[in-house]
């Protein structure tokens, strides 16, 4: 088990190296000159040259890459061109809202989608099933920001139940913290619920036709026990897999949702940094998101062994 985790961790290194090369190349081979952007409109060419030297932008591209990687491994993400601060500090400032939003979204999604999927499979062909399936098609088609604005319009503007936008840190009170996160996390969870409910339905349906389910029913076990202990347990692997794959959707959605709800998180930071052509920040955020995505999927792979003891590594 332990050796398996280590082996998988090592196997992610080439992937991450390729991501690093791509992210670096992509953002360093751009037309805009970051040195003159930082210097501003009033700068002389001497100022620009000075900034270029200070940031190492005058060195060959390959050595720039290795300087960057070396700093990265030492935990130094560089200095933001635009915010004039250490990128690591910038990311640390912004990581809280994003983690809070994502965690709440995953909680909602799993708590809503898994029971929906189980019921849809159990009552296959019923109105519940049709509603769940219809919702899952809709969830994939209605863009995150449209859902966000509909929810804002109904619950924040018309009904005034929840705040329209913004974010409140946990230290300023639990009520405000949750209140500000309800709408964005519901918005973000729609596509995730669609995805998980669909997979749950399919894999539970498959399990329900197994002999041991019939045996369990024949023993006179109540439906609840059969569904939860026999069906869901055996259907868990594909469900957990899709939760892992869905992290990519979640990350994409975070960028949009944070913009809609004016949440000062990493997604908002990404968009601001791209608009300002702030390479170090963009590189750091994309790398960070990719590392999180790859590692979370590693966690999912490891989770299989707990969910299904037949799987051994």
């Amino acid at each position, binding site marked *: 088990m332990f050796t398996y985790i280590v082996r998988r961790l090592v196997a992610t290194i*080439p*992937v*991450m190296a*390729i*991501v690093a*090369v*791509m*992210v670096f190349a*992509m*953002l360093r*081979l*751009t*037309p805009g000159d970051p040195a003159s952007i930082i210097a501003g409109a009033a700068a002389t060419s001497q100022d620009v040259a000075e900034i270029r030297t200070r940031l190492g932008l005058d060195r060959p591209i390959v050595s720039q890459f290795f300087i960057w990687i070396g700093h990265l491994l030492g935990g130094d993400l560089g200095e933001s061109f635009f915010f004039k601060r250490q990128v690591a500090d910038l990311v640390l400032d912004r990581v809280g809202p994003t983690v809070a939003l994502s965690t709440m979204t995953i909680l909602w999604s799993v708590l809503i989608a898994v029971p929906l999927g189980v019921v849809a499979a159990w009552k296959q062909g019923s109105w519940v099933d049709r509603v769940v399936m219809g919702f899952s*098609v*809709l969830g*994939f*088609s*209605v*863009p*995150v*920001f*449209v859902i966000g*604005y*509909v929810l*804002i*319009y109904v619950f924040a*503007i018309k009904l005034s139940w929840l705040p*329209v936008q913004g974010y409140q840190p946990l230290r300023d009170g639990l009520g405000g913290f949750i209140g500000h996160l309800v709408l964005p996390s519901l918005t973000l969870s729609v596509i995730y619920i669609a995805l998980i409910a*669909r*997979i749950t339905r*399919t894999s539970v349906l498959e399990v329900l036709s197994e002999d041991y389910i019939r045996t369990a029913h024949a023993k006179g076990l109540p439906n609840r026990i059969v569904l939860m202990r026999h069906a869901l347990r055996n259907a868990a692997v594909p469900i957990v897999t899709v939760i892992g794959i869905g*992290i*990519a*959707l979640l*990350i*994409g*959605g975070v*960028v*949009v949702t944070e*913009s*809609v709800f004016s949440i000062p998180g990493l997604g908002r930071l*990404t*968009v601001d940094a*791209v*608009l300002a*052509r702030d390479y170090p920040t*963009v590189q750091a*955020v*994309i790398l960070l*998101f*990719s590392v999180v*995505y*790859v590692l979370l999927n590693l966690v999912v792979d490891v989770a299989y062994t707990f969910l299904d003891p037949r799987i051994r590594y």
Partner: protein
Amino acid sequence: MSTAATAAIESAPPTVEGVTRRLARDPTVVFGVAVFALMCVMALAAPWLTAFDPAAIDPVARNKTPGSVAVMRADDGSTREVRHWMGTDSLGRDVASRVAYGARASLIVGVSVAVLAVAIGLAIGLLTGYLRWLDGLVMRIMDGLMAIPAILLAIALVSLSSAGLAAVIVAIVVPEVPRVVRLVRSVVLSVREEPYVEAAISVGTPTLPLILRHILPNTLPPLIVQATYICATAILIEAILSFLGVGIPPETPTWGNIMAEGRTLFRVYPHNVFYPGIFLALSVLAVNLLGDGLRDTLDPRMRKRL
């Protein structure tokens, strides 16, 4: 009809005609095709459908609510009343015209991304599936690309060049290519073991005709399905990029741009966000439904998996 007869029909090799007939009977496919066709008509006929120039700024007519009446003066001095069916935005531009013209950007992006991603992915997938020495390297690069969430990769790519239609298309194609490559490669790997491929190799068929004649046709049904889903994703991502302000320049009417412009005054004038949103959601839904229908008909094995 007896079960035996049904089975015989289903096991008969599918013809284009038979597949079309089966698709035409599927209500979701019919709905999808109908909505998509309507969007195409709207995009093509935009100049005749709307009375206003989508780019014309009118300071007097700012933030009109849907249905309000405007007076238009023709060249000969005569006047006529025209309705802003969807109101106007904060610059006084007619939202209905912008929404109609916005269909163009969405459709162009959706279709060209689907075609380009499938073409590039197919070429790479066929080669890597068939040439073993290329496989390892290319698949590692694809893994790397897939490790970056699609929207992030698109946002980063679009910032590389000056914003425009072509840049947006390229930025959306790149994250989609690895998915196509994986699909094609998996089909190639399974087909390569088939007896008829071995037979073709043993009679000395050169590599290129072998790939084109014996392997390529097997990849087409799943690819058509995949292309439809890519089209839907592309329409969505284009709107997201425009909405975030990193996509097609804001003066061009696209659904995402209209919504981005409308969001500042959303509390008072929600129509600027909702109308383009409805059209966007409807077209993506239509294309997705079309994809589901195509999948059930062309690629029945997929149905069991999802």
